């Protein structure tokens, strides 16, 4: 177990390093020239300005040199200047990552609060109409594209009641109530398909536990059905839920690119989406590396927690 954790921990920087090289190369093949993008209309007119902009952006150097310089900064949290806004990326990214972190946390809470009860109910009432209804709900939840759901949530109220749920974003400092209020809807939208997934996992784990020997024993010794379900069945089916937390991380990081844009949440996803269209190499690189780092760390944490919670799992 310890050897496994150490091996994974050693692999972690390697993975992040490889991903950073991958994104560095990918971003370099984005069409257009960052120097031209920065200068805008001026670019065609003045070759000298273009050369100077290239130099400022470090584009005149070889790729390995550019990467080396970027890497040295990145490990200190300095991601350089944004090609689009010429502001520093680091502080902006930190601010936005915090917003996405809050969005993600609320979304995971929703996922569990919606998914687990549905899964438990579905398993306990297995084969009855309620089970079919809940399973239908899960498969619908899995099939609804979250960006479409978000679009409907934002635009239909405007059409029906001229009420717009996507309001001016407030930071915690400005207005904590409105801040969290605004995160609720996007978090819920992000949670829908994930909770459908949780419901399915919970249901099958519960069903498996329901037919196991230890549950038969618990019933045989005369425990009340509620106690059996809660402390013998439910506890054992909690393990697969851990997976979902890891899975949700990747899902939220990807989904936030669209959802944050629709709801006007100034998070990391919105930053990534804009960076692609502004040909903002530097920002895109920074966001991708941070996203990957988060995802890889979460996956590792989940794997370790898995083995810790379930002594049967040995790596």
């Amino acid at each position: 177990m310890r050897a496994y954790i150490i091996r994974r921990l050693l692999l972690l920087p390697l993975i992040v390093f490889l991903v950073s090289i991958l994104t560095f190369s990918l971003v370099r093949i984005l069409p257009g020239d960052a120097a031209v993008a920065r200068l805008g209309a001026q670019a065609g007119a003045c070759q000298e300005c273009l050369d100077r902009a290239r130099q400022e952006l470090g584009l005149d150097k070889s790729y390995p040199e550019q990467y080396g310089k970027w890497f040295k900064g990145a490990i200190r949290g300095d991601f350089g200047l944004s090609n689009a806004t010429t502001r520093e990326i680091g502080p902006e990214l930190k601010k936005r990552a915090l917003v996405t972190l809050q969005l993600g946390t609320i979304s995971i809470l929703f996922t569990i609060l919606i998914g687990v009860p549905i899964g438990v109910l579905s398993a306990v009432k297995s084969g009855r109409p309620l089970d079919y209804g809940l399973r239908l709900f899960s498969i619908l939840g899995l099939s609804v594209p979250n960006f479409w759901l978000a679009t409907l949530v934002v635009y239909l109220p405007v059409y029906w009641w001229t009420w717009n749920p996507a309001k001016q974003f407030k930071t915690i400092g400005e207005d904590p109530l409105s801040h969290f209020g605004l995160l609720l809807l996007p978090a819920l939208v992000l949670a829908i398909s994930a909770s459908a997934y949780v419901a399915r996992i919970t249901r099958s784990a519960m069903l498996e536990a329901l037919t196991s020997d230890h549950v038969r024993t618990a019933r045989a010794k005369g425990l009340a059905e509620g106690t059996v379900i809660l402390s013998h069945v439910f506890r054992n089916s909690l393990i697969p839920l851990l997976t979902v937390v890891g899975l949700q991380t990747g899902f939220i990081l990807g989904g936030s690119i669209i959802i944050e844009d629709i709801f006007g949440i100034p998070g990391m996803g919105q930053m990534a989406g804009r960076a692609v269209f502004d040909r903002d190499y530097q920002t895109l690189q920074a966001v991708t590396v941070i996203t990957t780092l988060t995802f890889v760390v979460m996956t590792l944490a989940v794997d370790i927690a898995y083995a810790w919670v379930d002594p049967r799992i040995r790596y």
Partner: protein
Amino acid sequence: MATQTQPAVATPDLGPSMISRRWRGARHFVRRQPLGALGIFIIVVLVTLAVFAPLLTDVSPTDIGDDVLVEPSADHWFGTNRAAQDMWTRVIYGGRPSLTVGLAVVLIGVIGGTVMGLLAGYLGGWVDMVISRVFEVLNSVPSILFGLVIGASLGPKLDDTLGSDFIINPRLLAIVIAVSIAFLPAIGRILRGGVIAERNRQYVEAARVIGASETRVMFRHVLPNLLPLMIVLASTSLPAAILTEAALSYLGVGLPYGDASWGGDLGGSARQLFSLAPWLAIFPGVALGLTVLAFNLLGDSLRDELDPRLRGSGLRG
């Protein structure tokens, strides 16, 4: 792509009578899996609409009409958009890119994932080491972010080199490549687990004892036993691939602006009009959701039929 952290899935044990059993199973499929049959029915309808779209409407999806932003009516079943294009036409044509990308990605992902999974899982050693690391690196980037970067960089490049007369729209090809790169490692990883489970089974040993070469064991003995897992993976990744394609088109990385696609019609500058003309948002979204639902229903029932142990552990985008 959200990757699974569950332990590798074992391949199902279906034995030598697998094929005959499946044929017999097909007869009872409708009775046993009514929801799966419903999925197949919806898929057939949607594919028919997409393939025969030109026969089902008398305008082209890019034709500019006379009536701007008309509500759904007898003339325009799904209303019209800002450019007075008929939304019914756009919705049935819009299925084409989604279905094409979905099928292409699944083909590439499952074939590529199988080959790489076989090599990694069966040969082990440094081959496994390299392939597994590659999978791990590619799996660490969320598929949408991946698709966004690759799609945005590759699309215009392919457009320039291949030109618009190429058999498949170069932008669509870029999306296929982008989504495939995101999906292949996730599929390959699960198949690798399947191969490892198969490798230690007796029939592999038996084949080796009678002197079969490694390649023969891999492709003639292990591969057929992976088929059920491949089918399940294909049917679970298809809806996810369609959703990813739609999300990319929504973000404007997909087809050129103006071409009919469900994702594209839901995103971009059309969004500003949704509060005035919600039908623009509703119909492409319903079509997309229905497609994904149909494939999910089919995938679920295939999983039930082929491998009950895989339930609830499918791929998603």
